[in-house]
């Protein structure tokens, strides 16, 4: 398991060429062009930590206001703004992005890869997130702070009641969600395809299993929120009627769309937290995790079942009881799955020889708090109890137990655990322990009394309360606790930062840990591993490496290699056998440019300036074109030589290269999006008292034509992808076929776009009169966006054909295009079913 193997083949020149190709940019370039997963992950975590402290200060202001009954420190309006921004900040700008950053940093290291699969896209997502945060906080500058709560219920957030503050909120949210969806695609591909040779699924760290599950949840749950926020934005600024009861809409639709996201969101935070514990606890107990397969099963069960939980947030909105009990059942099942994990952790502690290190302290604090929070959770999950405690401080107490206990304590455990890896220095154990006791004590002092204030009937989201309610003392305790808690966080931050300068040097593996990240240097070098480790067990650093010539051959081929392009091994999904070489992106300015363009577009919409919007479209388009050109140029450098080590081709068709996975994931995202719109329309249709009788889009020929054009696009791209040799050495012969295929696909796609627009223009519909008409517009709009993406990837295939000498890359790109166009076809089918088929058939 050595990473710096002196007697292996690479010569000194080869080593320095390798280091050259992986060199980090310097100076201003470092800020704007770094794409390496460690710098992106660090940025995510640092930015998220800043937002955490901002959200924490907001919480302190609220606690000061609530310390005594009938205080006037803050006005009711300011209080509303503060809890809205606190909730929004903590959920969207701190918790999820922090975990994405942790995953971006750790996953490649844990899996034995050199970077994330699409490093530039990874960076693009980070910039989107940063701009989302800046956009949300610019509301303070312009004095229009959102105040509708972190779930922004309609009609409070609709056109009549909310001003521009809501638009800021919605656009900020959209950018942050876009980033999260992108991060999810990255995580899926890195876990499935870029594991070290030999790391079959049964040897994968729990953290990787969890991030895979979480990524699937993000795709299935965040897309609906993105769609929902776009629909609300349309209602607010384009006069559509999705949430307007007068015109066939329904405010409940927003609640559905929000909680389809909102409940899984809680598990998107808790599961990675639990995964951190599953990594940290065994190391500090010096014992492997007990019951690994059952922990994996529990993670999968929790992830999937959480998708079905949304309605339990709506217990008091008058849904039919059977509907509700479906979801109560799911809540209970999740509790059992969480119980399995708790048992596994306790058994690990029991069978090991635990050390009371700082990470261990935070892990124990997590266990205690989580079990306590779980108990109140079961109470909240039972429908009758919830009806009573709903919207009281009992709920506030419960979710802070889950969020802080389930996510924040594990994050602190993880930070103290991986800090030596991140920085090469060990933080002070004494200060760390003090910060643990401050946070732990402060936390319970803050939030335990809130259960009691809630049971005494204090409602949430009120800026003050009556002295006669008799909860003054409890609230005072909470406020004191909040300050103790805050001091604990500050001390933890100081401890970590101080270690940067004064901490003891750690070496690669100070804890004697078992997973691959500890085989890299501390801090890891830019390519993480000069020689890629091979894996023969679940704890590769505790067991001798496997004797397997096939694996060793791959490790040798990638030993400080290749040196003309950044690349890492790509292995098979199930058993991680050697497959191909995945090219990894080098520094680039274009991610920040395109993300900036996107943010600019939102700003333009906010200030209602066509000029700004127009300029932003130019920036985005130019940015993507330049980005694609740079990609192809680099790949050209990679394919100019033979396969890595003479065996592993630089990209190959189908699931043997990352691009195919990316295209497939993008297709899935599109399908989820259109399914959400279709669900919304169906929901409105069955719930509306009046619905246009027999209302259908009624443009069958145009619809069919659109579908046909998409089929043609798929066929042409697929046909092109079958031409030309795959071999690196073969002479190219399919240039003409590829050009024909790309051109035909492009023309067919353009025709599909024109026909889609024609459907709307010729149909006798007006999106401002009725929700059905609005829904048709949204469905056709989604189809249009899907087609534009299809055209984009087709354009990339064309660029690939024009820039490459060999045939393999254009072949792959055409195949990816066919994949994405297949997704577009499904989008078309669902849209057609929702606009014409179902309205014609139902009632």
């Amino acid at each position, binding site marked *: 398991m050595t990473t710096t193997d002196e007697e292996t083949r690479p010569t000194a020149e080869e080593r320095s060429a390798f280091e050259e190709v992986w060199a980090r940019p310097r100076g201003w370039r470092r800020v704007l062009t770094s794409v390496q997963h460690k710098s992106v992950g660090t940025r995510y975590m640092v930015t998220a930590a800043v937002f955490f402290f901002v959200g924490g200060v907001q919480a302190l202001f609220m606690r000061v206001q609530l310390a005594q009954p009938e205080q006037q420190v803050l006005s009711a309006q300011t209080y509303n703004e503060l809890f809205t921004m606190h909730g929004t900040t903590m959920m969207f700008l701190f918790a999820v992005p922090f975990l994405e950053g942790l995953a971006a940093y750790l996953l490649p290291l844990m899996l034995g890869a050199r970077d994330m699969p699409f490093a530039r896209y990874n960076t693009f997502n980070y910039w989107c997130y940063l701009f989302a945060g800046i956009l949300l906080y610019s509301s303070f500058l312009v004095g229009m702070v959102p105040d509708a709560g972190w779930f922004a219920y309609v009609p409070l957030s609709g056109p009549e009641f909310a001003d521009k503050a809501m638009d800021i909120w919605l656009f900020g949210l959209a950018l942050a969600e876009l980033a999260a969806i992108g991060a999810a695609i990255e995580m899926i591909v890195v876990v499935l395809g870029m594991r070290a040779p030999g790391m079959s699924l049964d040897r994968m760290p729990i953290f990787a299993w969890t991030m895979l599950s979480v990524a699937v949840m993000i795709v299935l749950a965040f897309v609906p929120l993105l769609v929902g926020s776009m629909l609300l934005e349309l209602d607010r600024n384009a006069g559509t009627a999705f949430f307007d009861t007068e015109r066939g809409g329904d405010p409940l639709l927003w609640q559905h769309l929000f909680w389809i996201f909102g409940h899984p969101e809680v598990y998107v935070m808790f599961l990675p937290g639990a995964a951190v514990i599953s990594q940290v606890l065994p190391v500090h107990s010096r014992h492997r995790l007990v019951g690994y397969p059952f922990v994996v099963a529990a993670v999968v069960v929790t992830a999937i079942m959480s998708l079905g939980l949304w309605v339990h947030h709506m217990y008091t909105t008058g849904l039919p009881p059977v509907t509700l009990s479906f979801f109560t059942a*799911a809540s209970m099942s999740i509790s059992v799955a969480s119980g399995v994990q708790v048992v596994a952790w306790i058994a690990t502690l029991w069978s090991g020889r635990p050390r009371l290190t700082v990470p261990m302290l935070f892990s124990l604090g997590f266990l205690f708090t989580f079990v306590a929070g779980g108990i109140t959770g079961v109470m909240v999950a039972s429908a009758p109890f919830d009806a009573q405690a709903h919207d009281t401080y009992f709920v506030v107490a419960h979710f802070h137990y889950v969020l802080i206990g389930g996510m924040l304590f594990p994050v602190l455990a993880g930070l103290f655990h991986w800090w030596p890896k991140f920085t090469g220095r060990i933080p002070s154990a004494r200060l760390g322990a003090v910060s643990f006791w401050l946070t732990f004590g402060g936390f319970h002092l803050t939030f335990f009394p809130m259960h009691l204030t809630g049971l005494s009937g204090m409602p949430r989201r009120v800026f003050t309360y009556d002295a006669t309610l008799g909860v003054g003392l409890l609230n005072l305790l909470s406020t004191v606790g909040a300050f103790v808690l805050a001091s604990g966080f500050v001390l933890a931050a100081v401890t970590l930062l101080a270690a940067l300068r004064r901490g003891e040097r750690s070496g690669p593996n100070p804890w004697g840990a078992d997973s691959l990240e500890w085989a890299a240097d501390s801090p890891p070098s830019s390519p993480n591993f000069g020689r890629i480790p091979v894996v023969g067990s679940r704890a590769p650093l505790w067991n001798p490496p496997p004797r397997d010539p096939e694996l060793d051959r791959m490790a040798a081929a990638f030993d400080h290699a290749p040196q003309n392009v950044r690349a890492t091994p790509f292995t098979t999904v199930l058993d991680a056998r050697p497959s191909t070489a995945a090219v990894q992106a080098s520094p680039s300015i274009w991610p920040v440019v395109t993300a900036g363009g996107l943010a600019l577009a939102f700003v333009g919409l906010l200030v209602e300036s066509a000029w700004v919007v127009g300029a932003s479209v130019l920036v985005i388009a130019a940015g993507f074109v330049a980005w694609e050109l740079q990609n192809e140029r680099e790949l050209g450098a990679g394919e100019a030589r033979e396969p890595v080590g003479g065996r592993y081709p630089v990209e190959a068709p189908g699931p043997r290269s990352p691009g195919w996975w990316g295209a497939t994931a993008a297709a899935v995202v599109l399908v989820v999006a259109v399914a959400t719109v279709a669900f919304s329309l169906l929901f409105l249709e069955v719930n509306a008292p009046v619905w246009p009788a027999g209302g259908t889009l009624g443009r069958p020929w145009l619809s069919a034509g659109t579908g046909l054009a998409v089929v043609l696009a798929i066929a042409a791209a697929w046909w092109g992808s079958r031409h030309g040799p795959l071999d690196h050495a073969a002479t190219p012969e399919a240039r003409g076929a590829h050009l024909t295929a790309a051109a035909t696909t492009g023309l067919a796609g353009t025709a599909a776009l024109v026909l889609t627009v024609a459907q709307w223009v010729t149909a006798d519909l007006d999106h401002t009169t009725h929700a059905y008409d609005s829904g048709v517009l949204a469905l056709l709009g989604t189809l249009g966006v899907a087609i534009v993406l299809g055209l984009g990837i087709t354009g990339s295939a064309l660029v690939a054909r024009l820039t490459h000498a060999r045939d393999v890359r254009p072949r792959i790109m055409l195949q990816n295009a066919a994949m994405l166009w297949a997704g577009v076809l499904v989008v078309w089918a669902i849209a057609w079913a929702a606009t014409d088929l179902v309205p014609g058939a139902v009632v």
Partner: protein
Amino acid sequence: MTAVPATRPRTVRAAVAAVLIPPAAWVTALGLSYLVQDFACTAYTSSGRPPPSTVIGALVIGLDAVLLALTLAAGAVAWREHRRAAGDDSPLTGFLGLLGTALSLGFAAGIVMIAVNPLVLEVCA
């Protein structure tokens, strides 16, 4: 430990299917039960007709029963692969088999909890 690809692709594929089916079946059970029951009841109520509760209830239970059978079958296959893998010394298949068995049990319980609802509660209240 050498020549691991000896794990026969057929068995691995069966084990993978056994891992994927239970979650998919559960999601389908929840989604369809909710859609059928909620949308059907609401559609009838909004159009002012009395909903056919027994039919809807029976439909939901029937659907769930089919999905439950599927989940349990996946579990049986998974368990078989798990047992067989122990003999063959193929840890991956063994793991997938065990995972599939655990998932099948978990999601089967989930489907049962979904299916009993229309039995004990009024379907279109």
